[in-house]
């Protein structure tokens, strides 16, 4: 099996995740606008930031899918399990710890003057209590699609 079905699953999974996350924000489950959150690291303008953040998110979705291939998550169930781990990593380390270190426009102590987005805080509580469960569930769906696409091609 080649990596191509994993990457295709990563592309579709990232798009599904983006749509569902926007739906969750509309349903007031979370205030996280992931394209804006990521994109303001590169642009001050909101329109440019959201576009670049969305592109980065889809690019990361394709890139992470290669790791699913390395881990051998080539089924719907195994993909979902790896997705839960991926989501747990995202809500505990990637978004609340790594991104604030790299993000130049986040509202951290001493940096509020130029801030455009709120600091996520532990388990992303800065964006609402439901943010972490929603993100873990969406990563599980993403993993399910990556693994599922891999199983479809075999």
């Amino acid at each position, binding site marked *: 099996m080649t990596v191509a079905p994993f990457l*295709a699953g990563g592309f579709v999974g990232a798009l599904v995740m983006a*749509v569902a996350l*926007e739906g969750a924000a*509309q349903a007031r489950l979370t205030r996280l606008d992931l*394209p804006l959150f990521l994109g303001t690291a590169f642009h001050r303008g909101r*329109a*440019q930031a959201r576009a670049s953040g*969305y592109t980065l998110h889809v690019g990361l979705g394709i890139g992470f899918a290669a790791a699913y291939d390395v881990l051998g998550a080539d089924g719907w169930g195994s993909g979902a399990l790896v997705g839960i781990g991926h989501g747990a990593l995202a809500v505990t380390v990637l978004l609340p710890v790594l991104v604030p270190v790299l993000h130049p426009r986040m509202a951290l102590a001493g940096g509020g003057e130029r801030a455009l987005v709120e600091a996520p805080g532990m388990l992303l509580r800065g964006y609402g209590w439901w943010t972490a469960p929603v993100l873990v569930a969406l990563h599980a769906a993403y993993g399910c699609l990556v693994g599922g696409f891999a199983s*479809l091609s075999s």
Partner: protein
Amino acid sequence: MTVLGALAGAFVGTLVLTSALRLASALRWTRIDIPFLLGTMFTANRTRAKWLGYVLHALAGLVFGLLYAGIFVALGRSGWLLGALLGVLHGLIAGTAIVGILFPLAHTRVGSASSGADRPALLEPPGFLMLNYGRMTPVVTVPAHVLYGTLVGGFASLL
């Protein structure tokens, strides 16, 4: 399964999608006119915007057909059902990322959730799932894109 088949399906699918949206508009189910929205990215003249948007929508349909084909090639399979499932996602993306992220970036004549009132907007911002153009809008646009996807997947598997 061929890429050419997917492109043929995309061509037919775009015609069906555009016609379905026009029909829904004529029946007053929705006020959305996607080709018109696309056309007004380039001209403020409403008549020119309509035909230009129709051409752009047809071209965009072919580009999306290539994306569908890429997924079919990666999976080594295609079909009506797979195309229809991708069509659901396509319809949702049209109502979220395209109107919510691409338009505020590239469209100077449509408002956005974060734009001010310092310039006259020609068009209303579509909003989440284009609901600002009527509550029935996603009920029309998503199934219309499912039709498109079904045709792309079907043609790809047949030709």
